[in-house]
């Protein structure tokens, strides 16, 4: 147990999230225990309403669990003030959303530098450019989001999420709004981050093809972890397991 704790990037213990009160209360997460190992790529899947987005929000400190404890990189989020929580997010967590990831007023470069600036740190010379180069957008540094394609915007978002070298990168349906080519590029970038830079990635998706890039797939149903696939062979296998889950 102690060994796993130290070697855990994200740990959820008996995490429940209930929306509303009384009769209209909805249990989105029901006492979930999850451990995410460092330098792994985890996909979270499940039918809509299974609680996969809530799991991500709670694990990332965007939402507060009704009960249970979330630990990111050894720091417990329980009882943290909004300000302290923000600082944990800023230092240890990166985000990529499905859409509207970038501030429209800022150039690609400025968007990437944003987390550093918010942390009160002046980006080192070339730091931001190098990050953009890594996602293949060195030549788009001065472009505004409106001048970039959806796939390019998503790659800028990945660069921004990685620039602080976070303990975990959370991605919420990062390919949901993209075409196949752009999706493939985004997934390849995430995979590379895990393999080459030992980055921990947690991705919510409903796309078995996307999930096939992960080391591990968590299948959620009714707010609980219903199934776990380690090193899934391919997308069809995941799709079958998903379908089985939905039939239950």
């Amino acid at each position, binding site marked *: 147990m102690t060994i796993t704790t130290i070697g855990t990037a994200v740990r959820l213990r008996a995490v429940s999230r209930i929306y509303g009160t009384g009769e209209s209360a909805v249990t989105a997460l029901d006492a979930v225990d999850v451990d995410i190992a460092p330098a792994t790529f985890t996909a979270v899947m499940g039918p809509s309403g299974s609680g996969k*987005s809530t799991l991500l*929000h709670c694990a990332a400190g*965007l*939402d507060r669990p009704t009960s249970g404890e979330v630990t990111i990189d050894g720091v417990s989020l329980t009882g943290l003030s*909004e*300000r302290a929580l*923000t*600082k944990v*997010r*800023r*230092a240890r967590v990166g*985000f990529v*959303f*499905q859409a*509207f*990831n*970038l*501030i*429209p*007023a*800022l150039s690609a470069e*400025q968007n990437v530098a*944003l*987390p550093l*600036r*918010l*942390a009160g740190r002046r980006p080192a010379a070339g730091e931001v450019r190098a990050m953009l180069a890594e996602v293949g957008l060195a030549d788009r540094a001065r472009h*505004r989001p409106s001048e970039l394609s959806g796939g390019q915007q998503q790659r800028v978002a990945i660069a*921004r999420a990685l620039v*602080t070298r976070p303990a975990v990168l959370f991605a*919420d349906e990062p390919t949901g709004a993209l075409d196949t080519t752009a999706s493939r590029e985004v997934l390849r970038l995430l995979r590379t981050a895990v393999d080459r830079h030992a980055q921990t990635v947690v991705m919510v998706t409903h796309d078995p093809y996307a999930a096939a890039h992960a080391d591990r797939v968590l299948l959620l149903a009714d707010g609980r972890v219903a199934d776990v696939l380690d090193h899934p062979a391919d997308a069809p296998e995941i799709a079958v397991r998903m379908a089985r889950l939905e039939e239950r």
Partner: protein
Amino acid sequence: MRLAWDMVRHRFAAFAGTFVAIALGVGVVAGATTLWASSQPQTPERLSATPVLVHSPSVGDNDDGYPEYRSWTIAEAAGLAGRLAALPGVTAAIPDPSFYVQRVVGGRPTGDPQTALAEGHAWSSAALGGYRLSAGAPPERPGEVTLAGQAPGSRVDVLTAHGPATWTVTGTTDGPGFYVADATAAALSAGVRLIGLTVSGDAESVAAAARSAVGTSGTVLSGAARDTLEPESVTRIRWLGAQLLIAMVSLGSFVAIFVVASTCALSAAQRRREIGLLRAVGATPGQVIRMMYAETLVVAVLGGTVGVPLGALAAPLLAPPLVAAGLEPAGFAVTWQPAALAGAFGLGIVVALTGVWTAARRSSRVPALDALRDAAIEHRAMTRPRWILGVLSVIAGAALLIALPALSTDAQSSAMMGAAMLLLIGAALLAPVVIAPLVRFTTWPWRRGATGMLVREGTLTGARRVASTAAPVLLTIGFAVLLTGTVSTISQSAGADAAADVPAALVAAPDGTPGLSDAAVAGQPGDSYLSSHLLVTVGGRTTRYGVAGTDGQEGVVLSRELADLPRRLDVRFPDGTTATLPVTAVRDDAPEAMLLPRDLVRRHDPGALTEAVLLDGPAVPATGLRVLTARAYVQLDIDEEGEIVQIFLAVLLALGVGYTGLAVANTLLMATAARREEYRALRLAGGGTSHVLRVTSGEALLAVVTGTLLGGTVAVFCLLAARRSIEEEIGQAIELVVPWGQNLGVALVCALVAVLAAGVPVLRARAGSM
């Protein structure tokens, strides 16, 4: 800061409302303060060549806080002048008596009646203004005069307190005024209040020597202190002007804060996702607040940069109309006032930051999770702080209104204004609560049509948005009803009041003159009173009382309010002489505080005039006299006051309506632009552009109706409370008059602006992508 600049640059449309509000607000404040600062007391021109002036002593301050002066007698002044002339460095000490004289051309008095009261001077005092004789000789005998623009030997018709006269011009001078022989001036003037010293050498050392020579029998003025000799009529004009400028500045700032606050609130609501994203990538609540302050600061600096030159350039253009309206003295010129401009710039920043305050706090509480949500749903129309602030404002305002009768008369009008502002803010804050039932009620007849349904549901779900459109309308209508209602009610009741005081049906009144001369009064059938004043000293305290000189009485008759005064009064007349007069009676219906025998008043106040004659027979024609009905005579005063009040009203309403237009237009532009998606969906569902237009117009009108009803209600409450307190005070019922037509006009202007502002983005969108 860099981030803020990029945000502002990118989304300038969202900040345009704030920008325009600040630019205009700063412009108004910069212009008004420049005018105000330019309007400083100045040494009268005809004394400008005199470095040291000695004024007669003050006998203490009057009720308005201004010093009350007594005159030297002619002999006193001559004696003092003689002593002053002997001081080293003094070349001459010249007493400066002045009296009423007015030029008559073609049987009609000319020039400004108030200025004419001190147009006559002694020839020796021409030196005080540095005026010289350019032709002819100085006046020596009664009936001789020296003035500008008339050749020696010509004759001029004039009017003095005695009556019409024809004077012979002995010489031509280069300064304004009528200069007569010193002895003649002494006979026509009520004492002397000023002695001018011409000096050789240092004026300040002469002033110091004069101070010790004069002691308590006068005040020595030199340098800038001479500016206090500005004529009272000019001071009053400047004071009136200052009232207007102060009102403009305070209303301008208040409305600007209001507009900025509502604009920022709306833009913050529209930027929830963006702020959520910032929070998600690591912005703390404090950073969000700082960013919004920084953005607003950038906009305020830009707005100020535009507004300051705007105000600085507009101020000189406004000077002539202000002079024409009698709100600044003739010859008023605008000067460069860097402090006023800097102050306006600073005020713009303070106003902007005050306005953004609540919006920034609200934004900082946006959860990071909002980045993931579609932001179109407005969460709650009312937040807890909004409830608390709204209810507190209403309670505070209502408490002020209830306490109104207990306050002093002076404090009442400002208390009512304060209460009105509090109630209007409260109403604006609580508007979302009222909107839902109001919308249900007003859209009831159209509930079956598609447009009716859309408007109804749109406004119900977007109560907050409707409230922010309604708020400026509420403010404008509230102030408009309040101001027009106050003014109309006051003038109505004042007219009735004053007419009741004028018993005779016909009145012989001054015509182009400050009062009636003795010649004009003589032979008129009816009662008249010679107006003057007395300084009465009781127990070491000196007070000025109005005096009416009348026929057929002995000693002093007191009005009922002064019944407590001693039976023998120590008085000082306008000509500086003192006497002890017996009180012979107390009267209830005295037209002035004190009544004195007419000839006594005339003897000690050669310049005294008669205000009017209450006729009981046909009037005898005379120069500077006309016959009016009592009502028309009273109406003259009211009209004169009314004219200035109308100017005030027009300026303030224009300011208010202008800002409302801006605020409404801005709110709707922003809201409609943000709802393009929604309208696109409506179009896809089969609605045409006209359909969309009907929906936007319907919503805009609904907001205007809401604002009008709320604003009107608040204002009427304030007026009723004010009426109650005044009725209690004067013990007489007052009819409340509200010019509804005028206010309806204001509401219609608001409605027009609102419909236009709501429609333009729809049409523009159609012309563009859709």
